[in-house]
């Protein structure tokens, strides 16, 4: 069944302002970038394997709208939205995913390990659940160094069964860390529904640790942004928070996954819940057309530039196994 949590506020006049258009623009960047990647992957232009967040864009965009540059986030394997919403440069994004030397990680990380420390994006992660303690450590650094920053962990509903979530909830509560846990609850972990993997309830779980938790309609970008600004403020004050965003994974687990395990009737209803479509319905058609043209130009330019990227070389890669000041440290 397509997933939409209750509690998505009805469209209010306040939604129809410039801010909503900006949120739409950011979602559209993620959407068009991933649609482009999907095609490039099919064409063999993007190596490895990639996990797209098409259908889930309201979550990273809504949450990151509440963040500052100095705030940090740890992501998971489905991290393109987190990276772009936090401000990672589009061109260096494409370069990285294509495995180019000029990519943000020098082509070392690719889609599943993309990071940009300059914008506080601490990394996508190939290990389910691994980003949670890293975000907690980042929150600890914010706390001890008095940066005023917040650390966010984005994780999927599949990670609820990993011990690191349970450990990190405890640690965050115990140490009053400025940390936000964002669960992107798309109902699936790879090819199995979460209902066959997890008997718990995230909200109750957070409550067991004394952590405030809320569920929001993760397909309503304005609702996510509103909820995020509230929970980010609380987290900044040292009250860790959980925000569960109910959303839908439209593409397969990875590109090329034919999703034979999904009910075709469900897949057919997904467009009705599309966060971009829902957002666009609240905006003026002219505005949407203008933003669309602008975003499409930006994507086309970024891809064209990325295609001019060069292949990284192994000697340069080897030089980054350890820090360069190695000699000074023996």
């Amino acid at each position, binding site marked *: 069944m397509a997933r939409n949590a209750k509690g998505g506020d009805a469209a209010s006049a306040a939604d129809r302002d410039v801010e909503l258009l900006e949120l739409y623009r950011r979602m559209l960047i993620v959407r068009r970038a991933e649609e482009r990647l999907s095609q490039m992957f099919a064409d063999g232009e993007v190596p490895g394997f990639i996990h797209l967040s098409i259908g889930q864009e309201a979550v990273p965009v809504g949450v990151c709208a509440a963040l500052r540059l100095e705030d*940090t986030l*740890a992501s998971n394997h489905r991290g393109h939205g987190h990276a772009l919403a936090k401000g990672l440069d589009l061109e260096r994004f494409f370069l990285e995913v294509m495995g180019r030397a000029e*990519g*943000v*990680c*020098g*082509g*070392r*990380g690719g889609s599943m*390990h993309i*990071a*940009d*420390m*300059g914008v506080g994006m*601490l*990394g996508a*992660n*190939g*290990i389910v659940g*691994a980003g*949670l*303690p*890293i*975000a*907690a*450590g*980042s*929150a*600890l*650094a*914010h*706390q*001890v*160094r008095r940066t005023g920053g917040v*650390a966010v962990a984005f994780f999927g509903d599949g990670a609820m069964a990993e*011990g*690191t979530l349970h*450990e*990190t909830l*405890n*640690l965050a509560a*115990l*140490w009053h860390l400025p940390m936000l846990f964002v669960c992107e609850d798309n109902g699936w972990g790879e090819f199995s529904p979460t209902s066959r993997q997890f008997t718990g309830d995230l909200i109750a779980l957070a409550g067991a640790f004394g952590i405030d938790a809320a569920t929001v309609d993760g397909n309503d970008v304005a609702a996510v942004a509103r909820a995020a600004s509230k929970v980010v403020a609380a987290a900044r004050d040292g009250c860790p928070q959980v925000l569960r965003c109910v959303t839908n994974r439209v593409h397969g687990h990875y590109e090329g996954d034919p999703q034979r395990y999904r009910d075709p009737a469900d897949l057919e209803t997904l467009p009705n819940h599309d966060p971009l479509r829902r957002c666009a319905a609240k905006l003026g058609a002219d505005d949407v057309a203008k933003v669309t043209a602008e975003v499409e130009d930006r994507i086309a330019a970024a891809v064209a530039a990325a295609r001019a990227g060069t292949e990284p070389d192994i000697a340069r*890669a080897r*030089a*980054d*196994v*350890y*820090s360069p*000041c*190695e000699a000074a*440290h*023996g």
Partner: protein
Amino acid sequence: MAETRFGKAIGQALADAMRDDPDVVLFGEDVAVPGGPFGVTRGLLDAFGPERVRDTPISEATIVGAAVGAAIGGLKPVVEIMFMDFCGIAMDAIVNQAAKARFMFGGQCSVPMVLRTPHGAGVGAGPQHSQCLEAWFAHIPGLRVVCPSNAADAYGLLRTAIDHPDPVIFVENKSLYAAKGDLPENAGPIPLGRLRVAREGADVTVVAYGAAVGTALTAADALAADGVSAEVLDLRSIQPWDEAGVLASLAKTHRLVVVHEAVEAFGVGAEIAARMADVGFDELDAPIVRVGAPFMPVAFAPNVEAAYLPGAAQVAAAVRRTLE
């Protein structure tokens, strides 16, 4: 020069590093209020306060994962895993996060953290609290592995490890904690990757690290009585290890024995032997001999544990084999 226990020297290094650098923070199970399971961190909570010295819950994966995030965030965390055997639970954070971040993010960040952990048998702790697993970590590009044999080295190597920009696994043999040694008043950092000649000799080179250095020195005493002059090298750090230093000694003695407490098979000694059989081939007058524990877990029964530990007699016998 003051006589100090090995464990105390480690505590001193932590205190001095915390005094010199406000970014150094300490966390682990029972390290703050209780002062550490072996008393190593006693007094640090009082000296530096609860923000920088923290007890954690029993959550090894998250202790190390949080150290990675904290290190990327600008702190220099020193975390403790109570027994090296427990690293199994934290292995992802060590191997896939700490060791990889610098490389996979294209050199955007380093991970200046230290993971302190005790290894070693001899205290009746049984199969799950006695292992020497340093070879696991030495096998992972991106990690540094250090294992001191005495108080002064423990101090100097730990100071270096804390200031090091990359993740360092700092291994402490638990049988050494009470051992006394001299700690110079103005002790400073000791670089990684440079061995120490623990005893000069002419006939055979014996390479060891950690508590096995003591075993090698005892063997060297016994051999000296028989007119055999053994040179004992203390590696100090395993990753990187001082290949040039070992080769220089081999060029003098032409015989090599490698000793460690870890099981012999697939261990640190195998790497050293393989390298010396390659780059030192022309220097060798005898096969390289390894001395390590037998390929079995550590047993609880004191007599079996004692028989398991490689002793000085085994080292002396190995040396004699190279002289046959």
